[in-house]
């Protein structure tokens, strides 16, 4: 009796959530998908292209190169993040007086909002004012144009991203390391295992779920990277530091090719989904 007159309270409570999901995820995503079949610009208007839009984009070498560059960027940045982050975590997971201070120091880069990290490193790389060139000059290697060079621009941006976001990976790994049970480690110690063996055979297998979470989250976060390239190099020189976000941004909001931008954005979305699916499957198989 009570049940029939009862208000569907729990459905009412998720209405605001559904409105946000509908307005800010489902609708824009559907709209991007819809526009991806058109050529659409303020001057020439909207014209239906169908799958031709996709074949055009996919036969564009710049776009394919950008996809590959974007994936390489994810691989290198996340890989180095994990290595340094793991090193930091192993160095500092035992709480001692000096260690607590060291932990705070190692986390300092995270206080920089990404845009601040980008401009700071732009200064460091600067031709005249940059600290890096200054040191190179002291040791006799001479000055370089770090960001304006097709060869060094891309690694230089990677270094900035790695610097800014390693503390984030470090904090996740540290939390994981600290929550491990101590018994297996103690047992290994009694058995006389070396530090390396302890790490490889005891710590690493137990850390796998945490590493998996850090890798998946950080990879997708890095996949949509934008601010570093946009601020430091604008994707250039040429297209040497172009990633998907900067390329799509430039197509849509600098050249006003909304249709082309949407086609690329749809493909970027599909790649991100494939990437997350791929990573999750790998870690699931490894855990068995």
């Amino acid at each position: 009796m009570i049940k029939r007159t009862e208000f569907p309270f729990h459905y009412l409570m998720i209405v605001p959530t559904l409105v946000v999901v509908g307005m800010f995820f489902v609708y824009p995503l559907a709209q991007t998908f819809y526009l991806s079949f058109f050529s659409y610009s303020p001057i020439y208007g909207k014209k239906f292209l169908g799958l031709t839009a996709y074949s055009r984009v996919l036969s564009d070498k710049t776009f394919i190169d950008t996809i590959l560059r974007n994936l390489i960027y994810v691989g290198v940045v996340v890989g180095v993040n994990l290595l340094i982050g793991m090193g930091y975590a192993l160095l500092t997971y035992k709480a001692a007086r000096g260690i607590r201070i060291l932990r705070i120091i190692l986390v300092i880069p995270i206080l920089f909002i990404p845009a601040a990290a980008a401009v700071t490193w732009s200064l460091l790389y600067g031709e005249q004012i940059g600290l890096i060139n200054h040191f190179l000059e002291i040791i006799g290697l001479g000055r370089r144009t770090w960001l304006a060079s097709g060869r060094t621009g891309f690694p230089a941006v990677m270094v900035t991203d790695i610097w800014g976001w390693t503390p984030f990976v470090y904090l996740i790994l540290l939390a994981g390391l600290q929550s491990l049970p101590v018994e297996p480690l103690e047992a290994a110690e009694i058995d006389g295992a070396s530090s390396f063996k302890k790490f490889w055979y005891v710590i690493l297998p137990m850390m796998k779920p945490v590493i998996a979470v850090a890798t998946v989250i950080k990879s997708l976060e890095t996949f949509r990277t934008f601010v570093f390239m946009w601020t430091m190099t604008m994707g250039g020189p040429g297209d040497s530091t172009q990633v998907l976000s900067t390329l799509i941004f430039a197509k849509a909001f600098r050249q006003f090719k909304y249709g082309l931008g949407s086609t690329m954005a749809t493909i970027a979305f599909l790649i991100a989904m494939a990437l997350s699916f791929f990573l999750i499957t790998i870690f699931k198989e490894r855990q068995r």
Partner: protein
Amino acid sequence: MKSKKKSAILVGIGAIIFLAITWSIFPLVYLWIISFAGLGALPTSLELPKRLTLANWKEVLYAGETIWPYMLNSLIVGGTTAAITLAIALPGAYSFSRYKTKANNAIFTSLLFFRMMPYISLVIPLFFMMEKYGLLGSRLGLSLSHLVYTVPVGIWLMKGYFDLLGPEIEEAALVDGANKFQVFWRISVPLSAPGMAVTAMFTFLLSYIEFLFAVILTRKLTFTLPVRLAAYMDIHETYWRLIACSSIITLIPMIILFAFLQRHLVRGFTMGAIK
């Protein structure tokens, strides 16, 4: 032999710690130095100590085109975003925590998917949407677009806190004759106040550091701090002293937020997957 090997390892660890510390703080030290560099003094020249000045700080803090309007924009956008996020996440997370229906679970999991997607795939239609409703270049428009980042995180975090509360007190209140809304509003919400504080700060943080939407949806008067910093770079190397001062100022809210969030950071970053 053995002690020799041990001391070699200690020296090695010492060297690694030294490198790690240098790597972590030298950009900050460098920023401080050039923020005091006088006109014409290259920050790397030996003349620098003779030419230290407060002029750059004066210009950024009160004399020239100060940083404050942009700081205010960032604080308003972040505050608005956090408030709207909480208003949405509180009832949503409560429902996801207490009523595990199939539909609820599916929606809750799909939020994770929305947190992971490349936001560039949403930007073009969102731009049109803001233009259509006259929100382009407004702080409210930016706040609304930031819900894309904050609502999934906010709901996942708040659900974690509601899960911790457990249903016992609520059941007792229901037996005493309170209705479901009263239980939610008078009991669960007040009890989860610490969780609300963490969620609000974390969503503020996400909005404060956000760049992509900010660069598309704001105009000169409504620039947030990240956009302001990036806009300096257009003119390149001319304004480096002011860039240094401004960057240091953007750290202040981050330091305050991190001081409060500390232990909750990892939970927030991983949406509660790791505690």
